């Protein structure tokens, strides 16, 4: 609740009456509401904000230790006790480290990107640099983080609700353009997990999560009611494998946002889960059967009443289907296109209304804020999104044909932003080569 009021510029408290969660469940005993009615009345008559003057700018913190090791430990302890950590070791955002990170910005450090919802912490480029410093990032990662924050802030996302909701959506940031390789962002094996040869995604995603928590107020159980909260150490930040796109296929940023191929950009989908789909056949299928069986299996995974995806039924997405480049190439050779794949998945993921009724799903459609979505209740079978183009299709993953990956969404929109890099970017990349090895494929294991 503090987040909600600070997010609209009020002091960080509010006149409210709180009850244990049991009160809010079907069939609950409401006796305590009657017993505590005076608290409601007092809230309208006597309440005063105790924190009306609380505000201000960021400040510096300090710790001391007998050694650097001890000071570092105390700094981490201080960050955790102030509820600014994630449980993993953090780099304290010293002025020196933040200034280093800021070399990656094409914008002034004081440039305001917006207020991070729902808490409303003022988010500048420097705020992003502080988070990236804490997350172990490097200067060349900052342009991607800034663009991702800008995309998250787009009003069409309803980011304040995504931050707070119990359903635990997390940003999945797709990066297109040459910057992905330049900063060592993974597009291949294990791209949604840790990779010491391609460490950028972990730091950028972790920094974004720290911003969500520390600046946006998404503290578990307080500012975010995410019941499970998976993928929230690093979110998901990865590159599309543009080299792996079959001839004639366009990068995601081009098909979804109209950016010219070769443009450095981010595209943000809010995912609420990840599901592995064993796509490949097991016996003597022909190539055509293997492709078609795999498509059916993907559609079968998508054919579920994911009611969180209602938020994006018209303009957002029901989810992101990731197919490995080797699968994309084989399918393209068989005549499949990006459009025909989306069309197939859309058509064959429709849910019979009888099944929707069995699951109580129509009630959620009926109360949706969007009249277009409400109107969809007339459709039988019911499509999981308004049109095939809502489905995000990305070519990424290891060079292996067995699996696809379905990230179901809670994504009212899918926002793209162009990444801006400073004029000195090449020097930063050279520094990365110096620090981390050459970064080319030949250097990799």
């Amino acid at each position: 609740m503090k987040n909600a009021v600070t997010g609209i510029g009020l002091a960080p408290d509010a006149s409210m009456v709180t009850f244990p969660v049991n009160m809010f469940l079907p069939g609950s005993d409401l006796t305590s509401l009657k017993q505590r009615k005076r608290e409601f009345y007092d809230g309208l008559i006597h309440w005063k904000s105790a924190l009306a003057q609380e505000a201000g700018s960021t400040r510096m913190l300090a710790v001391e230790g007998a050694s650097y090791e001890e000071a570092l430990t105390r700094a981490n302890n201080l960050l955790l006790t102030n509820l600014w950590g994630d449980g993993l070791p953090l780099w304290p955002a010293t002025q020196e480290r933040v200034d280093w990170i800021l070399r990656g910005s094409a914008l002034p450090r004081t440039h305001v990107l917006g207020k991070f919802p729902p808490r409303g912490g003022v988010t500048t480029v420097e705020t992003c640099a502080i988070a990236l410093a804490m997350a172990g990032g490097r200067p060349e990662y900052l342009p991607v983080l800034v663009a991702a924050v800008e995309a998250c802030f787009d009003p069409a996302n309803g980011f304040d609700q995504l931050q707070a909701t119990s359903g635990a959506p997390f940003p999945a940031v797709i990066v297109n353009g040459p910057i992905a390789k330049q900063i060592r962002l993974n597009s291949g094996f294990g791209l949604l997990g840790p990779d010491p040869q391609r460490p950028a995604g972990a730091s950028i995603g972790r920094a974004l999560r720290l911003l969500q928590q520390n600046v946006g107020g998404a503290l578990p159980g307080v500012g975010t009611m995410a019941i499970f909260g998976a993928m929230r150490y690093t979110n998901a930040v990865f590159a599309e494998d543009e080299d792996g796109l079959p001839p004639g296929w366009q990068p995601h940023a081009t098909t979804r946002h109209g950016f010219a191929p070769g443009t450095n950009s981010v595209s943000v989908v809010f995912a609420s889960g990840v599901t592995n789909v064993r796509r490949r056949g097991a016996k003597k299928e022909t190539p055509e059967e293997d492709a078609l069986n795999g498509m059916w299996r993907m559609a079968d995974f998508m054919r579920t009443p994911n009611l969180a995806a209602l938020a994006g039924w018209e303009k957002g997405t029901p989810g992101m289907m990731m197919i490995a480049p080797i699968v994309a190439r084989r399918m393209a050779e068989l005549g499949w296109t990006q459009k025909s794949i989306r069309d197939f998945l859309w058509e064959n993921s429709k849910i019979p209304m009888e099944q929707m009724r069995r699951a109580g799903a129509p009630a959620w459609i009926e109360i949706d804020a969007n009249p277009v979505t409400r109107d969809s209740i007339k459709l039988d079978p019911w499509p999981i999104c308004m049109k095939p183009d809502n489905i995000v299709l990305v070519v990424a993953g290891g060079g292996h044909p067995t699996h696809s990956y379905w990230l179901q969404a809670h994504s009212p929109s899918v926002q793209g932003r162009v990444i801006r890099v400073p004029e000195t970017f090449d020097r930063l990349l050279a520094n990365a080569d110096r620090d981390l090895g050459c970064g080319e494929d030949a250097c990799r294991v």
Partner: protein
Amino acid sequence: MVKLEFHDPSGALEVTQPHAPRLASLEGKRIGIVSNEQWQAYRMLPMLKEMLEQDFPGITVLPIDTFPQGNALIGEEHTAALVKKSGVDAVIVGNAA
């Protein structure tokens, strides 16, 4: 001793508007209720309306459906404008969870 100085990572907050002043009393006042229709609001808010009407002579508590309801609608400027236009002295908003 080694001293480490580092940034508070929480970002600045800006207080740009005060909370609404409280009422001197509830007698004779006109109260609105804005419901998100969630978390048993359909049971709790009518009960609250009934208690207010019993305890404060002359109070008017507008029907629960006077204003747009639902999570997606109650935060909209249109809803705020309707609340202002209604001339209520105070508003109760519920239910959060």
